[in-house]
C-alpha cells in the first residue's frame, strides 16, 4: 500500500456524458469520474467499504468488483479506481455470476474474523458490512465450532474471554473522544486517510501486516483533533465509536431532522438525530459545496447544551407591558441582532424597527472572536448569518458603535445575542441603559443582566433560512425537541410586537423577500436540501 492516493473525481452537473455498456445495455454516464460513481449516477449501487467520495481512493477492500471487457477478455476490476472511458463494457452481478461470486467471496473473507457483535454494536443498523452482507454476501458460515473467531491484531490488547476464545481490543482508548474496537476493524484505512488528508494531522496508522493489521496511534500519543469525531462517521463498521454516543441509543430508533449548524458562518449541514424529544447526536449532512461530509467537534457536540439552562415560556402580555412602560419614559431603542438569527428573525427585527419609527436603530454583530476558516467545515466566524445580515441591510459589525453611544438609548433589545456574556467588560457600558430586554433561548449572562428576559426557541427548534459565507441560502428545519411547546420563535414574538404577526416562518420569509429582492419568489420547496446559490456568486 502506498501512502499517497488520489482524491476521486466526483461527477457534477457539467460532467460530459459518455456512452458505456453496462450488462450489454448502452447507458449514458458522467465521463469524468470513476466507475463506482458513474454506476451510481444511473442507479446501480455497488457495495463498497473503503471507498469514500471525499477521501482519497485506496482500493483495498476489493468489495466493489465489476467485470470489464478488455484485450485479454473479461477481467475483474475494482469500480472505485477504474476511470470511466467511452465505450467500455461493464458487467455487474445482474448479468455476471463471476462478479457475484467474487463479491460474495470478498464479503466472506472480510467477515472471517469479524466478531458477531451486532447486538451490542453501536453501528448496527447503519453498518456498511451489514448492508453489503445483505446485498452481496448472505453466505452460510463455514466456521468450524472448534476454531471460532480469532483475533490476531494488537498483541497488547489480547485476552481470553469467558468462553475461552482469543479476543482483543474491545475498548481501546484512542483519545478524549474516540474509542476503538480493534476486533471490529476491517482495515479499510478510511480513518487513517481522513486524518492524513482531510484533518492534515497524521495521528492514526495501520500497524502490522495481513490479518495481524490493527489501527493505532503513535506510541504515547492520543487521537486529539478538532475533527477527530469524523473518523466515527467514516468508519464503515463499529470500530471507531464516539464516547458521547456510545450505548446511548440504537440507531434505528433515531429520527433525523435536516438542518444547519448556526454556530458558524459556513453553516455546516447537519442531521439532528433525535428520539423521544431529545437530540442524541449530530451527524454531518453531505453537502459537496459546503462541508462535504465533515463536521467539527464544536458543532457536533454543541447539542449537549441545547436543552440545558433554558428560559421558560412567558406570556406575551409581559413583554407588551414592558414595552409600554419603556415607551412612557420615551427615548431611543437599540435592537441588537445576534449570530443565530435566521433571515426570518432579521425580517421581523426590521419590521419592528419600522413599527417603532425613527426612535429605533438596528445593531448587529458579535463580541466573539472571528477566526480564520480551517478549510474543512468551519469558517471561524461565529456570526452565522453574516451574509444574511448584509442581504437584509442590517449592520453586521457595529456593536462597538453601540457601546460608544450607549448613553443615547433608553431601551436595549437583544435577539439571540449574548452581548454581556461574550463582550464581558467591553459590553459593561450597555448595563447603563435603563430597560434591557433579552430575547434568548438560554438563561445566559445577558438574560441575567436584562430587566426582562423572554424565552424563545433555539435555532434547532425553528424553521427558517440562513445565508452562509459562500452566499448559499440554506434552510433550517424544526426538530421536535423543544422543552416547552409554549416557547415561540423569535420572528413570531418580534412581529407580534411590531403589530403584524407572522403566523408561519414562510410569512416571515416572504417579508424578507420584500427587503432583499434575491429572496423574493423563493419558497422553502424551491430551496434544495443542499441550499441555493444566490445571485452574485460567492461572496
Amino acid at each position, binding site marked *: 500500500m502506498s501512502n499517497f492516493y488520489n482524491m476521486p473525481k466526483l461527477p457534477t452537473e457539467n460532467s460530459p456524458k459518455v456512452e458505456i455498456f453496462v450488462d450489454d445495455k448502452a447507458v449514458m454516464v458522467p465521463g469524468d469520474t470513476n466507475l463506482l460513481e458513474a454506476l451510481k449516477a444511473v442507479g446501480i449501487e455497488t457495495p463498497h467499504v473503503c471507498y469514500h467520495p471525499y477521501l482519497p481512493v485506496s482500493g483495498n477492500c476489493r468489495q466493489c468488483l465489476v467485470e470489464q471487457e478488455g484485450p485479454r477478455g473479461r477481467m475483474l476490476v475494482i469500480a472505485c479506481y477504474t476511470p470511466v472511458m467511452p465505450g467500455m463494457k461493464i458487467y455487474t452481478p445482474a448479468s455476471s455470476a463471476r462478479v457475484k461470486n467474487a463479491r460474495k467471496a470478498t464479503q466472506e473473507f472480510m467477515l472471517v474474523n469479524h466478531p458477531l*457483535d451486532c447486538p451490542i454494536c453501536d453501528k448496527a443498523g447503519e453498518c456498511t458490512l451489514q448492508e453489503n452482507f445483505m446485498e452481496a454476501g448472505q453466505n452460510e458460515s463455514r466456521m468450524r465450532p472448534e476454531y471460532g473467531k480469532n483475533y490476531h491484531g494488537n498483541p497488547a490488547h489480547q485476552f481470553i*474471554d469467558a468462553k475461552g476464545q482469543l479476543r482483543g481490543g*474491545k475498548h481501546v482508548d484512542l483519545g478524549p473522544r474516540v474509542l476503538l474496537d480493534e476486533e471490529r476493524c476491517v482495515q479499510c484505512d478510511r480513518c487513517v486517510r481522513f486524518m492524513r488528508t482531510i484533518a492534515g494531522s497524521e495521528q492514526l496508522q495501520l500497524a502490522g501486516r495481513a490479518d495481524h493489521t490493527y489501527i493505532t496511534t503513535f506510541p504515547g500519543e492520543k487521537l486529539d483533533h478538532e475533527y477527530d469525531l469524523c473518523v466515527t462517521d467514516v468508519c464503515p463498521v463499529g470500530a471507531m465509536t464516539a464516547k458521547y454516543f456510545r450505548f*446511548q441509543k440504537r440507531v*434505528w430508533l433515531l429520527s433525523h431532522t435536516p438542518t444547519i449548524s448556526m454556530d458558524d458562518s459556513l453553516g455546516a449541514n447537519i442531521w439532528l438525530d433525535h428520539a423521544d424529544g431529545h437530540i442524541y447526536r449530530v451527524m454531518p449532512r453531505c453537502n459537496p459545496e459546503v462541508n462535504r461530509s465533515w463536521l467539527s467537534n464544536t458543532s457536533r457536540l454543541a447539542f449537549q447544551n441545547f436543552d440545558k439552562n433554558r428560559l421558560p415560556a412567558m406570556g406575551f402580555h409581559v413583554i407588551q407591558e414592558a414595552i409600554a412602560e419603556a415607551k412612557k419614559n420615551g427615548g431611543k431603542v437599540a435592537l441588537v441582532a445576534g449570530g443565530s438569527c435566521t433571515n426570518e428573525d432579521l425580517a421581523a427585527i426590521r419590521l419592528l424597527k419600522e413599527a417603532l419609527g425613527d426612535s429605533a436603530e438596528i445593531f448587529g454583530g458579535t463580541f466573539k472572536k472571528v477566526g480564520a476558516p480551517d478549510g474543512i467545515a468551519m469558517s471561524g466566524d461565529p456570526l452565522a448569518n453574516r451574509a444574511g445580515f448584509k442581504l437584509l441591510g442590517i449592520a453586521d459589525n457595529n456593536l462597538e458603535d453601540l457601546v460608544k453611544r450607549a448613553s443615547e438609548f433608553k431601551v436595549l433589545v437583544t435577539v439571540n445575542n449574548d452581548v454581556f456574556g461574550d463582550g464581558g467588560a467591553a459590553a459593561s457600558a450597555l448595563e447603563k441603559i435603563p430597560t434591557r430586554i433579552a430575547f434568548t433561548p438560554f438563561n445566559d449572562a445577558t438574560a441575567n443582566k436584562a430587566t426582562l428576559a423572554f424565552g424563545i426557541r433555539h435555532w434547532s427548534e425553528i424553521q427558517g433560512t440562513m445565508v452562509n459565507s459562500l452566499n448559499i441560502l440554506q434552510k433550517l428545519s424544526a426538530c421536535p425537541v423543544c422543552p416547552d411547546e409554549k416557547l415561540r420563535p423569535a420572528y413570531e414574538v418580534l412581529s407580534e410586537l411590531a403589530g403584524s404577526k407572522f403566523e408561519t416562518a414562510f410569512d416571515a420569509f416572504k417579508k424578507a423577500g420584500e427587503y432583499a429582492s434575491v429572496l423574493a419568489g423563493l419558497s422553502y420547496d424551491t430551496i434544495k436540501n443542499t441550499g441555493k446559490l444566490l445571485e452574485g456568486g460567492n461572496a
Partner: protein
Amino acid sequence: MARVIRQRPMNWVERLYIFEAIRGLWTTLKHAARGLFRYEELPTISYPEGQPEVRRTYRAKHRLMLRADGTPRCVACGMCAAACPAHCIYIEATASDDPRIEKKVKRFDIDHLTCVFCGLCVEACPVDALRMDTKEIIFEHRTRDEFVANLQTLTSWNPKDYPDDAQSQVAPGGTKNAEARKVWGMEVKN
C-alpha cells in the same frame, strides 16, 4: 369446497318443545347436583382456590436469566424491544465495568399492561437472557406503575422453582446475591 349439511326435520314431539325443554332442564339439574355432591368430578376448576396447571412452555411472566456471577445476562442490545409488537419494552444501556463485557443493562422495563405475551422478545434475545417460563399468570397490583416489571423484579426469581433447568442453578442466590447487585449498580437493601 362448500358442503351443504341437510338437517333432519324435527318430528312433532320435538316441535312441541315441552319435552325438549324438560330434557335441557334435566342436564342443568345433573350438573348442579354434581356440584353439590361430587364436586371433584366437575370439568372446571373453582379459580381462586384451585389453580390451573401451567406448563413450562406457557408464555407467562418474563424473567431475566443471570450469569454465574449473579449479573443479568442481558447485554442491552434492544433486540427484544425491536421485536416487540406492543412496544412495551424499554431499555437503557451503559458501559460495563467488566473488561470482558462491553455493554450492560441499566434499566429494563416491561409494561405488562401493554404486553401481549407473544413471546417474540424471547425468540429475539441473542444471549438467552429473557425467558417467559415463570408460570406466573396472575398480575394483580394496586397501581399502574406496579405492572411495569423492572430489572429488580425480573431478576428476583428463585433457582429452586426451576429444578429441571441447569442454567437457572448457576447463579447462586439469584438477585439476593448482594455482591452481584453491587456489580451491576443496583442499590443493596438490608
